[in-house]
């Protein structure tokens, strides 16, 4: 794929996604949103943005969950339109984006069944981008092997799942392990796929996916403290396509507490800053927020270049961040808890 022929297949979609990007809420919009007193105010203001009348047909009183659903619906409509218009390799690329949602959905459903929830109750909670045909039959499986053999073998995730079959039962810890193992396999596969595309796509996506991989490695490490996950197993879950690979990951594998993780990050200039500026004190940004901020910065960068697929990935990620922001603000408004309302992450 080179820049010369890019527009033949993907020109329309690139134009489209750049147009969509223009509709992402600006800082001024957020400033207006956080002044809202009620969700109705929020709706009124969103009407004047690119969201238009997406809430117009909802009866009052408005619920945050309704807003959430509608936000998702809008993204899904846009995404599906692009997916339907695309041809390979972009179509494959877009499919890859949906895989991460599929993983989340699978994990959500398994956890739900584990807690004896009815499947019909769980399905609406799944992200519509990651739905697949066999999804609703997931709860028949009681062991990973069964899950693989009966359900997942037909899905694109099958090849990622092979490593997890050895797990004996589905309990909390194992589900988390499965999720992370799936994610690891997914990220590495996606990374490889983007490398085969080469050019700017390869360049931008390797940045984005490397960051994603490193973030996961950090988070897995930090979250594993105080659990019964052995260090060897933990090391197996680190995606090996980030900047931390191989030395950083090896160091992370040995880490015993937060300070050691931080020491690992010291060696990497981009992550050092994130760790330095984050803290758990109220009023300051948490590490998670800093990661999100960094991600937004990375995604915005993708729009600076033309003729590559990175912008599709970036758009979905930015839109996701925007949804998180709106939901955060909406929750704060709905619960009348305005103290932390401005800890959203501005995009533009």
């Amino acid at each position, binding site marked *: 794929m080179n820049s010369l022929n890019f527009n033949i297949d993907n020109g329309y979609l690139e134009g489209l996604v750049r147009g969509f990007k223009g509709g992402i809420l600006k800082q001024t919009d957020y400033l207006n949103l956080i002044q809202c007193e009620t969700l109705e105010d929020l709706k009124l203001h969103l009407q004047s943005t690119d969201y238009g009348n997406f809430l117009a*047909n909802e009866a009052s009183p408005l619920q945050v969950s309704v807003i959430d659903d509608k936000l998702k619906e809008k993204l899904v409509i846009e995404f599906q339109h692009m997916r339907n218009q695309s041809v390979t390799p972009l179509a494959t690329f877009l499919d890859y984006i949906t895989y991460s949602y599929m993983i989340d959905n699978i994990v959500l459903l398994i956890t739900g069944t584990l807690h004896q929830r009815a*499947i019909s109750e769980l399905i609406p909670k799944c992200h519509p981008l990651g739905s697949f045909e066999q999804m609703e*039959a997931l709860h028949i499986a009681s062991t990973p092997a069964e899950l693989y053999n009966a359900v997942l073998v037909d899905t694109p995730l099958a090849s990622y799942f092979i490593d997890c079959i050895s797990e004996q039962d589905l309990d909390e810890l194992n589900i988390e392990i499965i999720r992370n193992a799936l994610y690891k396999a997914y990220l590495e596969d996606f990374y490889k796929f983007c490398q085969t595309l080469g050019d700017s796509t390869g360049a931008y996506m390797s940045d984005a996916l490397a960051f994603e991989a490193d973030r996961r490695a950090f988070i897995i490490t930090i979250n594993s403290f105080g659990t019964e996950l052995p260090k060897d197993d933990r090391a197996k879950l680190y995606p090996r396509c980030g900047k931390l690979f191989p030395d950083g990951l090896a160091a992370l594998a040995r880490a015993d507490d937060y300070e050691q993780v931080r020491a690992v990050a010291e060696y990497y200039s981009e992550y050092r800053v994130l760790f330095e500026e984050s803290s758990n004190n109220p009023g300051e940004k948490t590490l998670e927020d800093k990661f999100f901020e960094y991600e937004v910065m990375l995604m915005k960068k993708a729009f600076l270049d033309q003729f590559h697929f990175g912008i599709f990935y970036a758009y979905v990620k930015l839109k996701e961040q925007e949804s998180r922001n709106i939901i955060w603000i909406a929750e704060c408004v709905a619960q009348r808890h305005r103290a932390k309302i401005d800890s959203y992450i501005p995009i533009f």
Partner: protein
Amino acid sequence: MGSLYRSEEMAACQLFLQAEAAYASISELGELGLVQFKDMNPDLNSFQRKFVNEVRRCEEMERKLRFLEKEIARDQIPMPDPKEIPNSPEPREMILLETTFEKLEKEMNEVNVNATTLKKNFLDLTELKHILTNAQTFFDEAEFEIDGSTISMSDRAAVLPPPPPTASPSRTLGPTGNIRFVAGVVLRERIPTFERLLWRSCRGNVFLRQKEIDTPLEDPNTGEEVMKSVFVIFFQGEQLKAKVKKICEGFRATLYQCPETANERREMAAGIQTRIEDLNTVLSQSLDHRHRVLVSIADDMKAWHMKVRKIKAVYHVLNMFNVDVTQKYLIGECWCAERHRSRIETALRTGTERSGSSVPSILNRMETTEHPPTYNCTNKFTKVFQSIVDSYGVAGYREVNPAPFTIVTFPFLFSLMFGDSGHGVLMFMAALAMVVMETKLMQTKSDNEIWNIFFGGRYIILLMGGFSIYAGLMYNDIFSKSFNIFGSGWYPHPQRYSEHTIDHHKDLTLDPTNNSDYRGHPYPFGMDPVWQMSLNKITWLNSFKMKISIIFGVSQMFFGVILSLQNSRYFRNSVNIFCEFLPQMLFLSCIFGYLIVLILYKWIAINATMSACAPSLLIDLINMFLLNYPLEPCSSAEFYDGQKSFQSFLLLLALVCVPWLLIAKPIILKRQHSKKQVQLLNNNDEFEGRKSTEINLDGETQTSKQKDGRKDSHTGHEEEEEFSFGEAFVHQCIHTIEYCLGCISHTASYLRLWALSLAHAELSEVLWNMVFRVALKMSGYTGLIAIFILFTPWAVLTIAILLLMEGLSAFLHTLRLHWVEFQSKFYKGDGYLFDPFRFDKIIEVSADD
């Protein structure tokens, strides 16, 4: 020239409305549509404004209306447009509407819920019926296979281990004993995955039979038709049963109890049949009810929509008002035309009366430093011309509006390029038809963009057609043929040419120097038809049309420069008159005015006898610049006494104009400025050189704009503005270069009048000769048939290429000539449109949604 010449005088007014009377007053103003409101609270968010709750209530009503509309559309009941647009409702009516909608929505929801349950029941019964009818075949086949006589595959055999003794007797089936089954219905497209998953997760220990249901079933929730399949799954043991049921649930299959013996099934099927019939009556009754409800409201839907729109619009306007401290008054600011003030006051009075308030609303004229909006009162005829001008740029307040001149010059310049009476007649007739059937066509709103463009431009097309007929008569061009109405001025004199000579010599030339071939008087109107058959027709027409183009083009430019004088005079800007208008005028007349004189001179003074040494105007113009008049060839020699000195004088004059235009204005401005600095006077007229320094990079025209001090006098920030000589000078420099070069390039640009006219004439001639004349040449019945056949392609090509394509191209060129060549001489176009608050526009927009 009436109001079109300059835009309406606007008044900035302050509006005091009593709180109770505010709604009624604004809705009266909305019906009137002559007032543009200013937002007094630009800093407030939309949800922080005073009437946000009312706006929200309107939105809620709209939501309900949309819901009802969707229901009506689902039943395919037509929603007619109301005969007349309803008046804006009183605030009381809003509550009435709200309750009506509330009631309707509730009723509709109830009906829908009932219908959905009924349909759900109906669906269940139908599905069960299908299962029962199909079950027999399934069981027969199953038994046949399970009997073992036909099982060929070994794994099938392995499915059936010997029956365990604890199998429940009620669910046994045939001779094989404890095989159990579930029966159900699932979406047809999910069957393959369903089957595969069953096979995998039960390790092949189940046996699925399925059959497609031929008739589509209605999904009770969405109302869509879906295709489904009946299936029966045979399996063994409790564990498998749980698993199968889970999978069925996962695939949203509906399971039904199905009796095992054929007799029971038959009985059940009969029972279900009667229940289905019962249900059908109930269902049709409830649907009837729903239909009746919807039909009763369908007529009002559009009117309701308009009413709600109007209410919402009024509250939007009220949101722009300020509330005074006592909460009794709403204070707003607005623009309105000076001459409409009395009508507005009347409307306000009506509004006050309607609301029953005793305190009148007050419309108070106020002084403002803001730049007023441009408001040109148009009617259906002038609208299209005004919009042509506006799409280039909206005239500044009270600036000369080129639209009234465009009404004449636009179709005229168009016709010069499109000069063919035949095509003109077709165009005229088409436009006339649109104009005559105007009211009828206007009612049937069309979504067709192309049609709307044509229909919107019907008056301009009418004029273009009319002028083209005239131009065609002047060119004597009708479908590329000429009419010889008055008899040509030239004829082969019978004494000089015998009939035999004429018939056998193709290249005979009439001799213009000899009066014997000339009747003594020219063809009285337009081009002599004799040119149509002459060999040098094109050469002659080119020369004629080029000269015509120059004459009309330069005249239009002169006219534009004179209009700039009108602007300067109106805005009392003497600097512009003496430092811009005068040198510009001189420059243009010295070079191109003189050229026109020469053209006329050549037409009048030079005749055929002098043709060998007739002066070449192009060469002469070049010589004028080179100050060099060679004697050879004789066409470039001087052709009147003192020509050289006179032309040199003109050239000198034109050259003097350049520095005059360049330097005078900045220097005067600087002097005025420093004088003002000394006097510390707050004067208006000084800063104009500073203000509009935006330099358009595409360079063609837009920077050659006339300056006037008007704008600055209205910004009210004179004190802050610094005069910069350098900036003023650079700006004037660009302006000068642009004007001087522009004069030359624009004159050349007007030659497109000739070029397009030539192209059009040639194209139509080619079409005639290559297509239709072929048929005319044939004789007898073949000719008859050929004419019949060839007329169609000729006519179609004439309309498609000559009328539509050529017409469009000529239109665009005319547009360019007006926007660039004409308007650049005087038009600033930096105003903004008056956008009054009008209900009809708001309703139109909503109808488009």
